[in-house]
Every structure is written in C-alpha cells, then in structure tokens.
C-alpha cells in the first residue's frame, strides 16, 4: 500500500496537501487542472522533490528521505526517458545495473523484455533510429526489467497521437497486471483514465483527494473538476 501521510508540499507560494492511501496492485489516474500540482505530487513520491511536512510510506515503510534510485519505484517522465547516446539494449540494461556492465543472464532479461514490448531485434538501435512509439516501448522494457512494485507515469506518451497513446497505455496496464505492480499515472485526458484506471486521485485547489472510482467521479464531477473538463 502506498500511503501519503499528512503530506505538505510547498514551492514558493504554491502549496499542495495530500493525506491518502492507495491499495497495492491497483491502477490509479491522477487528474486535475494544469498547475494543480499533479507532476509535483509524483516527483515527491519518486524522491525528486522533498515535502516540507509529512511522510511517504510504501508497505508501511517510510521512504520519505530515500534517494530516487533506492525507492521501490520506476518512473517515466514527460520527456527524456532514454539516453540518446546509448542503444535500446543499453538503455534497458540500465534498469538492471546503472553502470552499463551486463552479464549473460542480464542480456537474456534485456532481450526478453524487448520482445515482450514488441521490439524483438531492435536492441542495437539508438533512440534516434526509433519512432516515438518505439521509444516509449524501450522505456517500458526498462520498467519491466527494473521489477519495481510501483510505477509512476508523468504523461510520458503525451506527445504521441491518440491511437498510439491508447495502445501504449494498454501495454502499460497489461505489464502492471502481469507483474502485480501498482500504477499511478498523471493524465489530463479523462478518456485515458476511464480506459485503464478504475480509481482516480483528484488534484485540485491545493489538495490531492483520496482515490475514488473513476467512472463515478467523471460522470458526476465536483465543480473544480467540471470547470476543467468543460462540460
């Protein structure tokens, strides 16, 4: 279970509070108006930004002060999810060891992961020689070999077209289901949330609310969300 305990995040004049829990193994969307602090919330969970108050807990363990790499988390950012100077296989391999050294067994895991995301035989290519969707798949293959129980997506597929984005999100949801991972994804598109996330955390007016069923929330949005959705 992921728990945000009396969390207070402050950035200049911006303040965000969160006090909520998310059951392990669930898929949840983080939705809210832009500037509400969705990315900031993910960055605090991932360890890129320190809260001024409160704790972040995973399965009862306090991870508030752990550096990003020591947390049980794989994160995909809005951009720059791959190193352009490394091959696809090297990029995936970094999920196993951060120093580019790989054993025979590691090689096998890397090529298995690439096959799972549909990129069999693409290991020697550099990101520049891959399409946007393929680059996303390489990043997902790395998430796969990282074997972390919590996956955070900060809109990594926002630059892709609608059909491709839906395809990638389905793939992420499948991978999360297969590995039993918990998935938390920022989205500004209610269709994405309805598609793969049964639960939604609404971030608005300085507060991240506890997860609630996505369909019910979107069918009956509170005023702050309704204004954002525009219906």
């Amino acid at each position, binding site marked *: 279970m992921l728990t945000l305990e009396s969390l207070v995040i402050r950035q200049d004049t911006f303040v965000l509070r969160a006090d909520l829990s998310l059951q392990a193994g669930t898929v949840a969307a983080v939705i809210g108006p832009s500037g509400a602090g969705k*990315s900031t919330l993910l960055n605090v969970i*991932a*360890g890129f*930004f320190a809260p001024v108050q409160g704790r972040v807990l995973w399965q009862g363990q306090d991870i508030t002060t752990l550096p*990003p790499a*020591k947390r049980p988390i794989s994160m995909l950012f809005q951009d720059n999810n791959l190193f*352009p100077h*490394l091959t696809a296989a090297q990029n995936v391999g970094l999920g196993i060891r*951060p120093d*580019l050294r790989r054993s025979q067994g590691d090689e096998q895991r890397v090529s298995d992961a690439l096959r799972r995301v549909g990129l069999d035989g693409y290991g020697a290519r550099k990101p520049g020689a891959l399409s946007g969707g393929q680059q996303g798949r390489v990043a997902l293959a790395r998430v796969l070999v990282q074997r972390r129980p919590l996956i955070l997506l900060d809109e990594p597929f926002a630059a892709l077209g609608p059909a491709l984005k839906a395809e990638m999100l389905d793939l992420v949801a499948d991978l999360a289901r297969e590995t039993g991972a918990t998935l938390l994804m920022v989205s500004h598109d209610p269709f994405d949330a309805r598609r793969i996330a049964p639960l939604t955390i609404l971030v608005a007016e300085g507060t991240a609310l506890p997860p609630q069923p996505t369909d019910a929330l979107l069918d009956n949005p509170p005023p702050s969300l309704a204004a954002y959705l525009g219906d």
Partner: protein
Amino acid sequence: MAARPVPLGRHPAGPWAGWAAATLLVAFVVLPLLAVFWRASGASLPGPADWSAVRFTVFQAVLSAIFSVILAIPVARALARRQFPGRSVLITLMGAPFILPVIVAVLGLLAVFGRSGIVNQALAWIGLPPVQIYGLHGVVLAHVFFNLPLATRILLQGWQGIPAERFRLAASLGCQPRDVFRLLEWPMLRATLPGALLLIFAICLSSFAVALTLGGGPRATTVELAIYQAFRLDFDLGRAAVLSVLQMAIVMLAAGLALRLSLLDGFGRGMDRVPRRWEAEQWPLQMLDCLVLLIAALFLLLPLGAVVWRGLSGLDAVPIQVWRAAWVSVVMALSSTVLTVAMALALAHLALQRRGVEALGLLGIAASPLVIGTGLFLLINPVSDPARWAFAVTVLVNAMAALPFALRVMAPVLRDIERDFGPLADSLGMTGLARLRGLTLPRMRRPLGFSAGLAAALSMGDLGVIALFADPDRATLPLQILRLMGAYKMDAAAGAGLILLVFSLLLFWLFDRGGRQDADT
C-alpha cells in the same frame, strides 16, 4: 504547471573532485601572488621607467581595442547580411587567430609589413619611403590582427541576435539602409560595443610576446615585458615583483569591468543563419560588403600565407634543436591539455551547485602568466633550482590559462545534460563513475574535444612563463623560434614557425574532430 522540481540531495559526481580542482586553482594563483607581494613590499617604489611602461601598456591597449572593434563593424555587418559560398569557411577562419601561436603571427606580419616585406617592396616600387613595423604601431597592428576576428565574431553574434522578422517589418515599412541602421543595428551595437571594447582592452593589457618581438626600448615596453626584462636582464627580483603588482592591478580592473558587461562568448553557436535583408539588396552595398570582406580576408590570410611560403623554403635551414623543442612542446601541450580538461570537468560539476565557481576559473586570466611565473620563481628559488621546474611550471601555467575557456564551454553543456537527463540518471541510480561513463562523457564529447583542442593549441604556442624559466638546453618551440629570430636566422625561424603552425592546428583539429566523430545529438 509548477516549476521544475529541485532534486533531493543530488550529487552527480563526487564534489570532492571539484573542490580539489578549485583548491589547486586558488593555491596555484594565490600563493605566487602572496610571494610577489611579500617580495615587493621590501622593494623600492615604481620609478619613472615603470610608470612609462604602465602608460604605454594602457595606451596601446586602448588603441588596439578601438581599432579592432571599429574595423570589425563593417566586416561583421557584411557577414551578417550576405550569404555567399565560403562564408562559413571565412567565419571558421575568424576563429583561427585564437589558436594561432603569437610568434607565428609575428613572423607572418614581419613578412608582410616588415622591412623587406611585401608592403615595403610595393611602396619602394612606386617610389614611396618604407614603413616601420617596430614600435607602437607594430604592437597595435599585431593586436588588431589577433582581435579583429574576435571582435567580428562578437558583433556578428549581436547581429544574429536581431530577429529576422524585424528586418522583414523594416522592409515592409520601406526602411532604407540608414533607417535600418538607426532602428535595429545601432541599438544592438550600443549594447554590444562596450563589452567587446573592454574585453579586447583587457586581453591586450597583458600582451607579452607581441611587445617582446615588435616593441621594446624605453618607448614601447609593456609592463609584462618590463617584468621579463627586470627578471632576465637585470635579475632584479624586487623590481619584477613591484611591476607584477602593478600589472595585476591593471588587469584585475579591466577584467572586472569586462566581466560585468559580458562574455568570453566569441566561439561556437549558430552563425549559419542569414536573414533576408531587403534594404541591402542593391549593388553599391553589395560591392561595399564584397570589398570589406576581401580586405579583411587578405589582412588575415596574407601573413599566414607568408608564414607557409617562407617556412617551406626555410625548412632546410631548421637546426636539430628545433625538432627537439617541437617534441618538448608537444609533450607539454598534451600534459596541460589533460590537466585543463580534468580540472574544467571537475569545476563544471562543482558549478552545478555553486554558480560562483565559473568566475573562479577566470583567475587564470586575471593573473597574468608572467606574474604567476615571477611568484613561482620566488617560491621555488630558495628551495631548488627553478630551471629544473620549468616543465612542470609551464604545464601548470598553460593549463590555468586555458581553463577559463574550457570551463566556459563545458559548464553550460553539463548544466543542460543534468537538466535533461539528471532525473532519469537519478532514478536509475547512476552515480559516480557509472554516471560519468554512461551519461556525462558520451554527451560531452563535442565540448570536451573542442576544449582539449583549444588547450593543446594554446599551450603549444605559448611564449610566456617559459621565457622566464628555461635554460639554454631546454626550450619550447616558440622560445626556440624567438632565439633564432634574435640570432637573425630568419630562414630557420620561418621554417620553425611553419612547424609550430602545423603542430598547433593539427593538435586542435585532432581533438576537435575526435569530439565530433560519432557524437550523438
């Protein structure tokens, strides 16, 4: 969207490396300065000859800065508004004097403007009296040769900074060239000129090799040259120390002023774009620009061509000592390149956390090589024979001199790398050596190669501190050329000059190219 997150306790590389480099830098600059002050306090006050050196130093630097910048205005304007084949070659060439050994340029200028040079031969042919290159105008001429390209590049950047849409707007309003100058170009120049003037003024203040070869005598001696003379000819360490303090005060003042206004930004970055300039599309202006560029190219290329031409015929006369000196110079250049790049890399990492570090790198420029050399001599002399330390001292001083440029090139790139890929590397646990090998070095290949090339070429051509320390047996190639010139063996000097030119350009080219090859973007 909220501002970018600040990472939690991130240490991309062991900060100890940066601190070690910073400490070495400060110690290496500050300790000699303290030694100089300590020695100077016991010595007599500056005499009339010293004050006249100060006056000459400032005067020639003012003239050099004014001429370089004023002449650069039409050249930069022509480059900014004309697209023609060879334009990028010409701009690249504008960067060449920066890595050109001073002594080679002096050889070239002598071949063109010297007593039996091309210009005087032409003057004699039409029956006019010859011109003299030695003295104030020779020093200024050489400084303009070096700094006209620098000024041109700075001003060209200013021109490139004016959005193309403004010129389009001006054209749609029917602006004539005079109006475009008043509306768009003059405001840019007013913002750019003071910085360019001050930078070149500051550079020319610590002129040594030019003053040594083309100046001299009581009426054309810079403070740096006076330090050298007090040291080498009179062995008056007290007076050398007093002069060092004077020199430091002058350069610090000018460098401080120049820093406020800009810069060190003369190289690199997008000069390929030429916006369409409707108002300048008329043949008199096209002819004018063509003529300006032709004269500028001749002014820069003729001396270089002369070095190659005379050097080729002088190669036979080159004595064996020259080749030995070339070997010494190459080893020295490579050593100080390694030192420069390592220190710049460490300091660039430190600068991620503390912005002030970048300014620290400028210490290497603010304190002149001869002042540092004097201080080191004072420190070493009581303990050991300074001539035995000539190699190490020269390598260090050269590394310090190249460091500000390397840092200026590398620090912004490293900052971009950390901004773009730092979070990913953090989330994957890439720290220390793994981060250096997996992220930093591969992505920094271009600036690393360029900095290394710069450091190697600068060190290869340096004629500064080695002149203080070296004994007759050990010499660098520039020093060997100076000795050949002093002995009036001009053929051998020309041959050696060509060798030096080739080595300097070759080292730069090799490193720079190494950084470009297979560099992913």
